[in-house]
């Protein structure tokens, strides 16, 4: 069984399942598109400067902005695979555990009996890669239980499983 990368605030004795590795691709694509947009904007002064329209603009500043964007993109590229490996979930008898984050780590437990409804969504990019996102809602707005990058079949199975267990263990508010 594949195991998700572990870190120090994980509860002991719980085996977290990792999400799909394709989430890395999805996040890469999002990051690259975002970076290209910002790059296009920050490149305007550089083009103007190089073409001589705006010769007075300082050359170092014209180069600096796009370089920063590229550096941030590279940093994200390094980080994304680790971030995706850090996401994990575990189904226990009474509750579902979700965890994520490297720098800012979090672990969350959502009891089946407290679930009000379960959302399964699929964006265009996710559909291309066959992924979906599952979002659990309780009566509390603080429950931000979002699980990205599940394979579509696994998301469907999890949703059915959660609904069935939720009904079996349903408690009032």
């Amino acid at each position, binding site marked *: 069984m594949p195991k998700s990368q572990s870190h120090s605030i994980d509860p002991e004795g719980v085996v977290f399942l990792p999400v799909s590795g394709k989430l890395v691709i999805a996040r890469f694509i999002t990051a690259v598109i975002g970076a290209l947009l910002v790059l296009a904007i920050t490149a305007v002064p550089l083009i103007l400067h190089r073409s001589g329209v705006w010769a007075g603009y300082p050359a170092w500043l014209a180069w600096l902005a796009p370089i920063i964007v590229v550096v941030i993109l590279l940093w994200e590229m390094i980080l994304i695979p680790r971030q995706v490996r850090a996401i994990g979930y575990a189904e226990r008898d009474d509750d579902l555990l979700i965890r994520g984050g490297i*720098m*800012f780590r979090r672990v969350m*437990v959502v009891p089946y*009996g407290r679930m009000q409804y379960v959302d399964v969504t699929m964006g265009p990019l996710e559909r291309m890669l066959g992924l979906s996102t599952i979002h659990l809602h309780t009566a*509390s707005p*603080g429950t931000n239980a979002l699980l990205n990058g599940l394979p579509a079949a696994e998301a469907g199975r999890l949703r059915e499983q959660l609904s069935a267990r939720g009904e079996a263990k349903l*408690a009032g508010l």
Partner: protein
Amino acid sequence: MSEQFFQEQPFRTDAPEQWHRVHPVSPLVRGWVAVVAVMFVFGRNSLDSIFSGDGIEGALPTPGGMAFLIMVLVVAASAVIFGLAFFLSWRFTRYQVTDDHVHINSGVVFRQQRRARIDRVQAIDVVQPLLARAFGLAELKFDVADGGKSAMRLSFLKLAEAKRLRAAILARAAGLSVDPLAPTEVAEAPESHVLALKPARIIGAAVFSGTTVTALLVVGAVVVATVWSGELGILVAAVPLFIGLAASYWKAITGDFNFRIALSPDGIRLHYGLLETRAQTIPPGRIQAVGISQGPMWRPFGWYKVHVNVAGYGADSSDHGSRTVMLPAGTLAEVMAVLGLVFPDPGVENPFEVFTAGLKGPGNREGFVHSPPSARWLDPFAWRYNAFRATQTALLCRHGRIVRRLQVVPHERTQSLGLHQGPLMAVLGLASFELHSTVGPIRPLVRHMSVANSLALFNEQAARAATARRIHRDEKWLASAAPQELPEETENGD
């Protein structure tokens, strides 16, 4: 029975085709501000035109008479328009209380049909604005746990009728409709007095509040500015500020005036208000979390404020947020009395000592576990105050040194749990524990515990919440519990 008066009659739930109307005066009570505003604007304009016409032209009777006629016509027209609008609004508002649901239909152009499941009713208020009190009317307002959407209102009913409906809805919500001889009859549950706050306390609480700090700052700034510049215009310009401050004092004092708490079998009942009075009923087990707080100005007096989370009150800020206040300013003994109502079973042998340690801190007396010394870097003052303690039935979270807070969440009301760790906390070996409750003023959080302690808390709390949920499965709190209460109640109600 049949010869007693109206309010003594037993309540009967309605058949599907049976509907009731609210009191005919209600649209006026609700819309009088609009009427007065229109009257004022038109009236002033017409009066102006009469007087200015008289003054300038000198031809006394004709223009003055014309203006008067126009004024009468305007008044008559607005009376007809308002009258018609009010009549239609009354005519199209109907309600019905069946065994399982409350239905309210309203709206002339945009029809609205609302239906609430009675067993999901979280709390009921009986509200009497000033004008409604003059007519002996009351508004019935009840919250359903539906993620903070607006509450359902029935405005206005006769006070006795509103109370009867409240009793009936609460009794159904409690699952009390089990009398086989008269399955649709309900008697109103009697109240027993718990505590009342004296006017001096309410005024004192308002005087020693954040408003006063703001007021002093504002007055100081205005005086300094006036003296420094020598311009009296600044004083005049600050008048709206003073009016705003006075209004917030006024609201704080009139809102909580005559605050008293009573206990009735259908729940905890809070009465308060000077001009607009409100009787708020929270059925047992509907309180999701309790927060007790004390600012530095209240410490010499030993006063505390008690807030509650009730599902359904959540995002409803229409009533200046006072609905979530369980006790505006109480002494330690009064706070304990309120906690006794909210949590009849505190889950420890010495609840007074434990809760006092939770309110006062610091350190780890009475089983409280506070942050490790490494948390000093993040909370230099409060690290020995930030602590938690789990009892058999609830989790107590204490924090803050300047403003002291204690949050109490019963295990069976835990929605979900979270554990967080930022980079700095990772270096110091800390983690924060968060407990998610329903929407409300209380967001329970245990900050900066050692990783081992917070992990243990996380695991144990998940297990405790699961166990508590299995025990407290039932929403209808009277159906299973205490059948010996019922005969007493019907005796008192007769």
